[in-house]
């Protein structure tokens, strides 16, 4: 079985896998040469030059598993992504990128600000031949509960989460950074569902100019100005000291890119529009 942490339920696996195995007698094993040719052709069909080599234990993001289940459970024949209300247009590929940790992380000492870095243009990033249609930053949240202590009353605490594209990083004591606000959301700290921010303009810029990728600056501020002391722990931007690596991987910030690999042929129009038809 794959070494990945994903365990799909029996109903997620196509019935054919089990039924075909049960209904058919054992097959003779094809020769290595035949298998090699089959693999080469399958790789080409699926758009790979060579077989990817799996690395260690990879945690499959819950959002990807959900999307896969939705896609495979659909009756409609479509290669489009089942994401109503999200402008993924003709995208047929979703990639997830975790934050690339570096020494810069330690320079962010304030709990309400953090820089996230995603290597989208390097090896394993978005291939040049694919067209970027959408990009989202997913931040996990842990709901804060009212505990009766007046000082710590959650009350109406709403948090404004802003995401900025760092156009030019600052130099300590010399100049401040140049940033551009790309999206913001106001969230209720009593709720715990993920927050998604549209970061398409930033990712677009990084793909065009990889050297100009200085990451995203995430800042949080209580909208009523009276945040409780641990409100900054609500949105999960960095790993807590007491948190183990595996648990963190399930809640770490993720960048999702939605791309069109151009392999889906555009369906021909069924009829010529009236305006294009010649007069009889």
């Amino acid at each position, binding site marked *: 079985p*794959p070494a990945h942490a994903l365990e799909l339920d029996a109903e997620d696996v196509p019935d054919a896998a089990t039924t075909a195995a049960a209904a058919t007698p054992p097959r003779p094993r094809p020769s290595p040469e035949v298998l090699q040719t089959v693999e080469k052709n399958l790789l080409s069909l699926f758009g790979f030059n060579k077989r990817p080599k799996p690395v260690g234990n990879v945690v499959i993001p819950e959002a990807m598993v959900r999307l896969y289940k939705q896609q495979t459970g659909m009756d409609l024949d479509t290669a489009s992504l089942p994401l109503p209300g999200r402008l993924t247009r003709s995208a047929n590929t979703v990639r997830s990128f975790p934050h690339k940790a570096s020494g810069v992380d330690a320079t962010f000492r304030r709990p309400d600000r953090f820089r996230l870095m995603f290597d989208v243009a390097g090896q*394993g990033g978005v291939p040049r031949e694919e067209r970027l249609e959408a990009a989202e930053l997913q931040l996990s949240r842990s709901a804060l509960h009212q505990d009766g202590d007046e000082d710590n009353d959650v009350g109406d605490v709403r948090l404004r989460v802003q995401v900025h594209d760092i156009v030019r990083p600052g130099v300590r004591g010399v100049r401040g950074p140049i940033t551009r606000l790309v999206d913001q959301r106001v969230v209720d700290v009593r709720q715990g569902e993920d927050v998604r921010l549209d970061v398409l303009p930033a990712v677009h810029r990084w793909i065009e100019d990889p050297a100009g990728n200085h990451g995203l600056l995430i800042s949080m501020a209580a909208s009523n100005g009276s945040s409780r002391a641990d409100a900054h722990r609500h949105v999960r931007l960095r790993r807590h000291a007491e948190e183990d690596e595996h648990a963190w991987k399930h809640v770490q910030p993720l960048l999702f890119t939605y791309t069109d690999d151009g392999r889906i042929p555009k369906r021909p129009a069924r009829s010529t529009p009236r305006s294009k038809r010649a007069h009889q």
Partner: protein
Amino acid sequence: GGHHNGSHHHRKHKRKNGTENCRRHPLYVDFADVGWNDWIVAPPGYEAYYCHGDCPFPMADHLNSTNHAIVQTLMHSVNPGAVPKACCVPTQLTSISMLYTDEEGKVVLKNYQDMAVIGCGCR
């Protein structure tokens, strides 16, 4: 591999002369056969199906033929040496989704169009 078996479902498609009408047959592509189960997270393989069988004249509605296929089969029945029969081919296909990890350990979900046969017909 596609397998012909002696099931009731199979027998009912057989014609009197022993030939079988155009229809969909099972064809399972198992990723484990090429050792891909270490990087493809899901699915473990997929049911691709294939189309096979005879396109007889007169054509029944369920053979999903076109007017042209009817004419071609008609002409074949008149002069078999000059015109071949219409072919049994996929007339409706569907996409599949694959969840896999790439070289860098990044997770990718990709949809591939026209990967599995839904319906066969004479064309």
